[in-house]
């Protein structure tokens, strides 16, 4: 199932599952969650999260479609910013991501021991 299939705002659970499987999206969500006042171009955001512009752009467009980020034009530049009305949804998703990550890590550790 692709990310775009889960873009409905009511399906945050399924969106979350897909985000868990995508580190860049998760990193971007964590970045905007920790820095809700970040307003920048794709290049500016890529620089701040330490990733390449192309991969950041692709994932940011998905987050815009999912309604987590807003974009607008200023002069000749496109600026991306957090959709503040989705802040609590993002928080829930990050908690779920961390839980899921922890669960998977523990599972892997247990498998190693066995």
């Amino acid at each position: 199932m692709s990310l775009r299939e889960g873009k409905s705002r009511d399906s945050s659970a399924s969106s979350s599952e897909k985000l868990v499987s995508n580190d860049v999206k998760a990193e971007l969500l964590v970045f905007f969650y920790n820095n809700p006042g970040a307003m920048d171009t794709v290049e500016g955001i890529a620089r701040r999260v330490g990733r390449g512009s192309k991969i950041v752009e692709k994932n940011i467009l998905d987050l815009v479609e999912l309604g987590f980020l807003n974009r607008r034009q200023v002069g000749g530049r496109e600026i991306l910013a957090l959709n503040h009305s989705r802040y609590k949804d993002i928080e829930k998703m990050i908690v779920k991501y961390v839980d899921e990550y922890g669960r998977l890590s523990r599972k892997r550790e247990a498998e190693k021991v066995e």
Partner: protein
Amino acid sequence: MKGDVTLVAGSSGTGKTILGLQFLVAGATKFGENGVYISFEQLPQQIYRDAKNFGWDLRKLEEEGKLRVVCTSPGLVLEREGLALEKKAPRYFLDDPVEEIGAQRVVIDPINHLEMVVRDPVALRQEIYTFTNHLKMTGLTSILTHEIPGIVGGELRISDFGLGFIVDGLILLRFVEVESSVKKALAILKMRGSDHEKSLREFDITGKGIEVKGEFKGKEGVLTGSARSSALAETLMKVGR
């Protein structure tokens, strides 16, 4: 003064960011004036953490709609929509966060980064002049911070593109060596339309932010970064004669 643009100049570590944040926190908590802080260097998460050392909960102020901490690239701040010949006034990047919370105060920290975007000093001066006029026409009281080179001593140069002429107020923060210890001095070099404080004041960065103390009495050469006692200077003058 309300509606003015003030430049706070100082070398790294003198307290420019703290002064800017203190101005915004005081506006939001004591004067009912909301504020926007624009940072080019630090991420908001660092700013929130550092501000807690002074007892300022910036996230809480943001949740209350009294403050916005924005981090962005310098080039975006000067981007504008609308041409001068159009009926509408041009819109700058910061107009959105300002309108969202009805801000009356703005801090841009530090303005030096604009030099990386507009390299020609004449063009930069023109851009900043247009931008500061926009801040004033929007009714914002603004602080622009400006990092100057040199920790103590040497030549004191505010900027290479005439920033001092553009702004209404100019506050200098400076490290000063006094009797083998480093102190901090604050001087108001310009405050357009007012008979401002002329004395050099010592200040400290305390757990509550910047605390301005008394004058540097009996000292001279404070702005050079190396203060000496006025009596000693007088004696040396006499010996010299």
